[in-house]
């Protein structure tokens, strides 16, 4: 493994190794005198974020620092991909600075893959456009594994704005690879047009999609989408696709509620549901650090970037 760009390109063995390492990273650091490992001492990890995401950037930064890497936050404050320094020139700069790994968040799908052509270091995709967000899917899978005891044979309903969601895409490939049944639920306007070849079930009705679900993953829906005719009003969306207490009761008792954050309370998820003990939202955040430690460890110590 030289880069982590998508979950689709991971083999099942690689995915399982990452999840195993994630648990070990948590064990290795939790509750110890010095919550820090010397593993990546002297290595430089660059956070290259073209979109504001304090949560993800902080999570990667914490993970890298727990492994003693030097972290450089390379500010790429441009709202448009066509303005400012080109991605290629930025890549050449980072290359000259000797970055061992570049964590990139970019509004353009495929930008991390382009970066691999201009850099020798490892590239970690921290979210590219509506394409992929592999560490989010990995932390979701790890959370499910912890809460549900495993992933194989479980049914996961992913609900909401699938078409604009890199989280949904990465979860589809990863969870199906790990043996879960994935069901995408949303109005046809928010589902990709061509899903025949995806390893998923598709449903338009949320109520009937809950009774056999082991996990329900709610996606953030941007209110602005209603201005572009994806749905008529926020109220109608919440009524048809929001997870409220009535719907929570339709789920099996053991089933969990997940959300990659940030949440729109009252829109895709009711406040009472978000705060219920069945919601794993804060665990997901905590697990994000362990997952990113595992991935950084794998990418920076398997010898291909030295």
């Amino acid at each position, binding site marked *: 493994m030289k880069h982590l760009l998508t979950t689709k390109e991971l083999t099942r063995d690689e995915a399982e190794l990452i999840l195993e390492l994630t648990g070990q990273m948590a064990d*290795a650091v939790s509750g110890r*005198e010095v919550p820090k*490992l*010397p593993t990546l001492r002297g290595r430089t990890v660059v956070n290259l974020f073209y979109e504001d995401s304090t949560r993800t950037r902080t999570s990667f930064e914490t993970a890298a620092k727990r492994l003693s890497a030097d972290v450089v936050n390379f500010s790429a404050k441009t709202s448009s991909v066509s303005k400012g320094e080109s991605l290629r020139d930025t890549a050449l700069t980072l290359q000259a600075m000797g970055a061992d790994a570049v964590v990139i968040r970019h509004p353009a799908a495929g930008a991390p893959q382009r970066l691999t052509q201009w850099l020798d270091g490892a590239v970690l995709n921290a979210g590219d456009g509506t394409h992929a967000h592999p560490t989010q899917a990995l932390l979701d899978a790890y959370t499910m594994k912890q809460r549900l005891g495993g992933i194989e044979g479980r049914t996961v309903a992913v609900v909401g704005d699938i078409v604009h969601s890199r989280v949904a895409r990465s979860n589809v490939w990863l969870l199906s690879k790990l043996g879960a049944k994935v069901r995408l639920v949303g109005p046809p306007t928010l589902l990709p047009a061509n899903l025949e070849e995806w390893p998923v079930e598709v449903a338009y009705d949320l109520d009937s999609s809950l009774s056999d679900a082991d996990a329900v993953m709610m996606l953030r829906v941007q209110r602005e989408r209603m201005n572009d005719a994806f749905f008529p009003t926020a109220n109608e969306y919440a009524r048809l696709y929001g997870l409220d207490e009535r719907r929570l009761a339709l789920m099996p008792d053991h089933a969990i509620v997940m959300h990659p954050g940030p949440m729109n309370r009252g829109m895709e998820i009711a406040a009472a549901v978000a705060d219920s003990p069945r919601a794993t939202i804060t665990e997901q955040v905590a697990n994000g650090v362990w997952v990113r430690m595992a991935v950084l*460890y794998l990418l920076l110590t*398997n010898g291909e970037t030295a």
Partner: protein
Amino acid sequence: MVAPALRQTPGDPNGGKQILAADDIGRILDRIAHQILEKTKGAPDTMLLGIPTRGVALAGRLAERIRRFADIDVPAGTLDITLYRDDLRRGGALRALGPTDLPQSGVDDQRVILVDDVLYSGRTVRAALNALLDLGRPAQVQLAILVDRGHRELPIRADYVGKNIPTARNENVAVRLVEYDDRDAVILTGGEER
């Protein structure tokens, strides 16, 4: 050059020369167990931490012997050092970490005896010391080793040595233990015919 086949000990499918047999290993561990009891005056507040892979089994065997010889319970655990290695950059295949499994007491104010099968460059022990010190503040750290093959690259020595085996750098010392292998043995392979 002599064909490798000529150097094989009969019955050893992997070739090489057997340095220690099962009986020898048993006697050595008996001796080390006694030495630990003697040197630590009955091993109070003491734990054995094996370094994966084979140090873990050796730590377990030493704990069992100490219990048998002196009716003293010395807890045995595992200390994984992967994240502390200094050769991570040099590569290898994808690998998972081993578990670190500490006795209930934790390491603070304890006498920790690190256990490993072979002492060579000393780099593994260096990593183990760092890993251990990040876990807490032991009162004392000692080192027990089954085979010392020399060629130290760091100023490290063992407190308990099973056997000193002079080797050439291009030789390899393989420790086999029934917990992982078909039998107990220490085998020397590689290098020129001696």
